């Protein structure tokens, strides 16, 4: 548990509607620095939409979002990235024709501002060193020259998290990192990822409650775009409403 209770992310009355459909309804959420928060809920509960609002993929229909005390509502995704929020997607999103090395490299490069168009990319020593460090961190150094589409599915998921981490985020939004993996694979992935993301503030979206139980300090439950419960894993487990609509018991 983090010692300080410094709020890093705050959502105030955030709404999102698509036509007549209210996908996110008056969500209030605040996240402490260093916290690992799980966001769970059945399919279609608005979890991914909520992440899309935080990192600017969709504009909000109402409400405000603050990051480290500054309003970031409706900033474009690349601005949000530079402010320090990184994102992985539910469906693996990589540069599939590029190697593992190139995938990380381009993310590391995004933090370097100088662009001399006549400098050979491999001559950027700072970018190269950081890329190698990141490859070591995510455990894909041996596969650096493998084209990312040829990686195992689990490794692709890890690489995507590596790409996100290479942008040096303070807050990481992980959208179902274990989607498409078997339970065994999920456990392995979670173990690997835990080391990588230590010390970062995380929002972990999952629809499989089992994955987050041992991982998150607090869990927020979303249903039909509304937060219906928030608390420790134990509190969530014991929550009547959650059991009724989410666990189906």
């Amino acid at each position, binding site marked *: 548990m983090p010692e300080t209770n410094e709020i890093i992310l705050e959502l105030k009355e955030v709404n999102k509607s698509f036509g007549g459909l209210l996908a996110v309804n008056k969500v209030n959420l605040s996240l402490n620095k260093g916290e690992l928060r799980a966001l769970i809920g059945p399919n279609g509960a608005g979890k991914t939409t909520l992440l899309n609002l935080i990192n600017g993929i969709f504009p909000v229909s109402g409400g405000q979002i603050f990051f480290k005390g500054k309003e970031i509502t409706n900033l*474009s995704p*690349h601005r949000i990235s530079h402010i320090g929020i990184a994102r992985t997607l539910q469906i693996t999103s990589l*540069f599939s024709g590029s190697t593992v090395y*190139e995938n990380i490299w*381009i993310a590391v490069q995004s933090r370097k501002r100088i*662009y001399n*168009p006549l400098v*050979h*990319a*491999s001559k950027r020593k700072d970018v190269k060193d950081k890329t190698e460090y990141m490859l070591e961190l995510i455990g894909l150094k041996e596969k650096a020259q493998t084209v990312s589409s040829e990686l195992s599915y689990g490794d692709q998921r890890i690489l995507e998290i590596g790409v996100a981490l290479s942008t040096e985020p303070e807050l990481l939004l992980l959208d179902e990192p274990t989607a498409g993996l078997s339970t065994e694979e999920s456990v392995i992935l979670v173990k690997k990822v835990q080391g990588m993301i230590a010390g970062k503030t995380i929002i972990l979206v999952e629809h499989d409650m089992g994955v987050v139980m041992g991982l998150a300090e607090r869990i927020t439950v979303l249903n039909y775009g509304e937060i219906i419960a928030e608390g420790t894993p134990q509190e969530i487990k014991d929550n009547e409403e959650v059991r009724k609509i989410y666990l189906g018991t």
Partner: protein
Amino acid sequence: MILSKISHFGFVLIFGLVLLVLAVLPFFVDLYYQTFLIELFVWVLFAISFDLIFGYTGLLSFGQALFFGLGSYTVTIFVRKFGFNTELSLFLSIVIPILFAWFVGYFSVKLTGIHFAIITIIFAMIGNIIGETWTSFTGGSDGLTFSPPPFRLGLLSVDMMDIKSNYYFVLAIVAISYLFLRRIVQSPLGKVFISIRENEERVQLIGYNVQRYKLVAFIIAGGLSGLAGGLYSLTLKYAGASYLHWSVSGHAVVYTVVGGMGTLIGPALGAGIIMSLEHYLIDILQTTDLVAGIVLVFMILVAPKGLVGYIQSMLKKGETSA
């Protein structure tokens, strides 16, 4: 690392050899063939500039004709009507298309896929219509002829009316442009372009302003397409509204797809192959578009990644089986 050094050395060797062959060629072929080669160099430049925007950045632009035509008209009109010298006019044939590319790109890069292709066609069509109708300025479909004064830069003086001088002049500029583009695509900027082609959403999520990078690619490609147009007019001593027709961009599309997109050398080879075939088959087939069409269909069926892509995959196969 060693591999990249070998490939770099290999490139320098092949590039030097090709230049050497092209440099001595005028001594062995007649003026007619020299003129053909100059035109080929111009289309190579046009094709590789198109490759930057299409092959590397993934944007199918039919607007390149607009910049080609603008470059061509810039040289012609500035020399003929305003009495500018050749060197300044040629320089402006990069600058003016860049300004237009900025304007066109500003609106176009907000769109993606087929919508991008269509809006660029529309801009080219507007250019073409203005060129056709504003006859007092552009000469309309008859076009404008002119006699460029020698190109002077320091001690260098190139007589553009002499075909051999013209040949070396265009060859040198196209070679430099090739090296420039090669450097661009190997630079961090080029890596961002490639990433946009691969996965635009991901590029945005890791913090790149995708629209701005697309605009940069569009402007560079536009400037070089303009230079190609400028060189074309310096060679033919003529500019016409037909150069602004969007179908001119179609040439670049065909060369790029046939040769292999996103490789630079591919579009250059594509231009060479198709223009040579057209050159030799024109008497039999009567129409050159037919040649381009047949080659295009053949390549799409046999080698959808183009000639260079085909060779690369063959080499890769050999490597893994060995």
